[in-house]
Structures are given as C-alpha cells and as structure tokens.
C-alpha cells in the first residue's frame, strides 16, 4: 500500500541516480573518512536539507488546500535572528529558541490571516514574502552577519554517526511529523479540512485551529531550514538566504504526488521529491553542465507534473478510455453475432 503510493517517486529517483551515475561514474561512491561518510550521495542528503525541511511543512499546508509562499523569507528572518543572537553573545540554546520562535510567529501570522481573516493563502503569505527580506535586513542591518561559534556551526557542518547533522535534522523532522500525522487522527483531520473546510467544520473538526497550526508548523520547518543554512555558511545573508527555495519546496511537494488542490498527502513522498530535486541539482553540477540549466529543467518538470495532475486532462483521459472500451466491446459483440 505504502510502497504503491511512493513507487513513482522511487522509480524516478532510481532512474535519476542511474542517469547521473552513467554520466559521472563516481556518484555512488561512499568512503569513510575521519568518522564521517563522504561521497556525492551524502552530499545530496546534506544539501537537500533546506528543501526537505521546507517540504515537510509545505506538504501539510498544501494538504489543507493552501500554499505558503513566505517560507524562503521566513528562513532569512530566522537565520538573521539566530546569527544576531549568536553574534551578541546570547549563547547557543537561546539563539536556537529565538530562531524557532521567529519562525513560529511568522507561521502564526500567516495562519491568522488565512484562517481567521479569511484571505486566500497565496495572497496572505505573499504579504510576508514581500516584507520578510526587509525585516531580515533590519535585523542584520544590511550586512552579512557573520559569527564564529563552533556549537552553532555544528548544525550546518557537524556529523553524528557519520551522517551530516542537516541530514539527521530533516530525516528526524520528517519521520516525527509523519508519525504524528499517521499515528494520530491529525493527518486525517488535515485532509478533511483540505477537501472541504466547511463540511469538516460542520462535522466537528476545529478547522480554524488546525489551519493556524499547519502554518505554524510550516514556519517552524522554515526556521529549522534557516538555522541549517545560516550555520552552514556561518553567517546570515538576508538577501540570498532561502531565495527561490519556496518554489523548490512547492515543487518537491508536487513531485511527491501531493495535489495542489488539497486533500490526501504523503510526507514521505514529498521528502523523496526533495531528494529528486537535489539529485538533479547535484547531478547537473557533477555532469559538468552549467548550473543555468537547472531552472529550465525544473520548469519542464513542473509542466510534466501539471499535465499529470490536471483534473481536466484526467477527465478527458477517462472519457477517451471509456469510449475505447465501448468500441472494443462493440467490436467483440459484432464478432460474436
């Protein structure tokens, strides 16, 4: 059942890995150096962390038939907050908590606008998307805020049990959220809200609180992603941190087969989607293509997925198949008589 759900993503990923290996034979090489795994695959797991983290939150938001365009700028804000806290000597734990709190507040703001005020999600989150980088730059005062704190940098470049910390972060976040959604009724309630908010509210689902919670979750995921990126480059770049990543996150979710029209979702599939995107990114670099091809390939990918997901094309396909079957049966009927 589960395997059937994620089969297309697994096949796509396997085909991609095969393709990259053909062009760059060393892609699957993994070696063990100084207590850490090294190799292109590990690099994919590490570099894919921001998009994978964002995809976890974005999956939930999209399942409620929403969209969160502000995750990229939320990343920039949270990274700026964390770097500011570290640079002014607050220590590690307060910096992390402050960054997470900033992400939570950003999510709460979006959630209130969507669930309570009733603004369409993409408009509501557009507001923060427009303002966010300004806010981040106010925090960093327009500079790239750098710091030197080994404890914080650990979140970007450290390793636990051989795997990079960012990889652990998204693996654990993804597993935790997926378990929470599937081991409790929460996932089903979110799906119900996404399919029909009014009906689920009438059936006793507290859709308002659920919607707010979903956007807060997305904000928290963005905060984690912001922490990873900031820790990795040991500095907060308000202009470029998380730029374009909201699009990658949305792409990861739809590659994961989650419908933009809300309803059923799979976090695992979205994470596979994030891995697919990162494999393409890394593959293009390894194969020696200029990275400019990245965007065009992604655009083509979105187009293919759109055709696959289109309700109108699906309906026409069904009608076409039905007419085919009818004509086949008519043919069989005629041959029998």
């Amino acid at each position, binding site marked *: 059942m589960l395997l059937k759900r994620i089969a297309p993503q697994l096949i796509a990923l396997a085909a991609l890995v095969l393709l990259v290996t053909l062009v760059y034979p060393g892609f699957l090489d993994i070696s063990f150096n100084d207590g850490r795994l090294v190799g292109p695959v590990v690099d994919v797991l590490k570099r894919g962390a921001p998009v994978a983290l964002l995809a976890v939150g974005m999956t939930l938001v999209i399942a409620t038939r929403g969209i969160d365009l502000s995750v990229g700028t939320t990343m920039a804000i949270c990274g700026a907050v964390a770097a500011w806290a570290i640079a002014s000597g607050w220590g590690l734990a307060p910096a992390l908590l402050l960054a997470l709190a900033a992400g939570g507040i950003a999510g709460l703001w979006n959630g209130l606008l969507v669930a309570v005020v009733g603004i369409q999600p993409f408009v509501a989150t557009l507001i923060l998307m427009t303002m966010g*980088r300004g806010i981040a730059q106010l925090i960093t005062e*327009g500079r790239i805020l750098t710091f030197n704190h080994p404890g914080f940098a650990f979140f970007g470049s450290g390793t636990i049990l051989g795997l990079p910390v960012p990889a652990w972060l998204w693996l654990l976040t993804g597993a935790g959220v997926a378990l929470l959604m599937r081991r409790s009724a929460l996932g089903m309630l979110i799906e119900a809200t996404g399919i029909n908010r009014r009906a689920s509210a009438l059936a006793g689902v507290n859709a308002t609180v659920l919607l707010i919670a979903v956007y807060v979750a997305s904000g928290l995921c963005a905060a984690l992603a912001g922490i990873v990126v900031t820790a990795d480059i040991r500095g907060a770049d308000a202009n470029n941190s998380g730029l374009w990543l909201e699009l990658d996150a949305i792409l990861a979710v739809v590659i994961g087969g989650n419908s933009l029209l809300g309803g059923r979702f799979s976090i695992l599939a979205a994470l596979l989607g994030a891995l697919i995107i990162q494999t393409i990114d890394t593959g293009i670099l390894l194969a020696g293509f200029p990275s400019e091809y990245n965007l065009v390939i992604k*655009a083509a990918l979105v187009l293919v997925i759109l055709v696959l997901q289109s309700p109108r094309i699906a309906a026409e396909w069904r009608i076409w198949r039905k007419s085919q079957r009818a004509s086949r049966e008519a043919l069989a009927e005629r041959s029998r008589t």
Partner: protein
Amino acid sequence: MNTRALPLYATIVIFLLAYAICWLQFPAMLSTRVIGNLLTDNAYLGIVAVGMTLVILSGGIDLSVGSVIAFSGVFIAVLLRDSSLHPLVVFAMLLALTTAFGAAMGFLIHRLAMPAFIVTLAGMFLARGAAYMLSIDSVPITHPFYETIQDAYWLMPGKGRLRLIGILMLLIVLAGMIIAHKTRFGASVYALGGGEATARLMGVRQGRTTILVYAFSGCMAGLSGIVFSIYTGSGYSLATVGTELTAIAAVVIGGTLLTGGAGYMFGTLIGVLTMGLIQTYIVFDGTLSSWWTRIVIGILLLVFILLQKGLLKLSQSRLIEAAADR
C-alpha cells in the same frame, strides 16, 4: 455610493495625503523634477502592472513577469551585440516572443484547469533559465539608437524632464484603461474574474479570454523589459528579481480586488506612483535604509487587502438585508 470604487478613492486619498506629508517635510518634493523622475524611474513597473491588472481582474495571477523582463533585457543586449539588426526589429521580435510565451501559459492554464500561479511559476523558471542560458554576465547595450531614446525628453516647466519612457508608460496606462473599461474583451475579463460559471452563462469565451489575457500580460512584460533595458542601458539575467511581487502589490494598492472581477486600471497607476513615492521619500530622508521600502509596501498591501475584505463583507451583508426586506 458605489462600494466598488471605494478602494480607488482610498488609494487616491492615501497617495495625496502621503504626497502632502512628504511635501511638508521636503518642499522640493512638489517640483516637476521629482515628478518627472517618479514617472521615469517607475516606467517599467507601471507598464508591467498594466498587464498584471488585467490578469488579476480576470481572477488569475502572473508570476513570470519579473523573469520575462530580465529575459527581454538579455535578449535585446545579446542580439544587439552579436548581430547588426536595428533595435526596432529586435523589439518586434522580442514582443512577438513574449506575447507567444504569455499566450502559451494562458493556454496551459485553461487547458489543464490548473491554478494560474503554479503554471506561471513554471514560466518564471523557464524565462529566468532562458535568460541565464543567453548570458550570465551583465551585457552592456551600446547602440546609437539607444542613446537617442535615452536622451529624448520633454522639458517641463520647472526644468523637470519627462523622458520618453515615462510618456510611454502613461500612454500604456491610457491604452489599458480603454481595453479594460471600453472594449468587449475588457468586459469578458471582468466577467471571468467575477465567476467562471456566470461568465460561461453570459456567453464569455473562456479559453479565448484566458489566452488573450496572459498574452497581453506577456506583451506588457516584454515592453517593460524594453523600457528597463533603455533605463539601465544593459541586459542582466539577475535583474528584476521579485518585480512580479512589486507589480502585484501595486495593483492591489491600486484598489483591484485580488480575487478578480473588480478594480480600475487608473488605480494601478496611483499604486505604482505610491510605491515610487515611498522610495523617493526614503531617498530624500537619507537616514532611513532602503529595506524599509519593502516593509512599508508589505504593510500597505495588508491594509488594502483587509480593506477589500471588509468592503466585501459590507456589501454582502447589505445584499442579505436587501433580500430580507423584500
């Protein structure tokens, strides 16, 4: 009183008030020089916002325009560098290309019945990627024709310079007003934004209207790219990142309903000028940092969205009351 026009009045009042405040602080704000520069600096934004207004009126959104502007700049610069074509020929080629690009997006939106923002998101990737492929570096444009256009201006009383691109922007807004408010196509666009089912019942040809709307937006984005290349004198594939957001904000601040179906083209001009005013104020002030622009624009965006939300509730409750009275 017409509640639909209320956001437009609010926009005009806010713009005049803001201008008055700026003028009280810096009397030089009211000179024709500042006004001329306001029009020149925001010419590309105004043109692209005209296209965006029509798209938003139809109930859609076009996220690709920023990338299309950047692509246009690079396309023009590279063609002028590598071939001996006259700029006007290049302009015509570019406009045909971007219009076709917009039409293709409109076709996909209609044909696939998918949300406009995701289709135009793909378009955004595609246009930006195509710009990268043409050139990653900034390509300067050195053509005598460009210098002629750049130097063309009308000296207003008070030594303000109304440049050609500023005049072009005003003409485009005028054309947009005529298209949106005076033509059959404009009426179809409003009907489509008001509701697809009603539009169909009214006999609006949905597919044709959708394709034309996005083609128009693509054409405006191309024209805006031409203006931007004249303004900056170069083509750069990383230029105008986020312009689509600024354009959407200008349209909304101009009083157009983001859900479509209601709004005025003239409001968009005021919206663009309001944003330009914020920037000019920050330049005049000198102590404020430029990133305040984005924050103020975000706040204005929020205020107008809330205002529209309130008006919608008001008119709905009025409708219910009217129904109850009957």
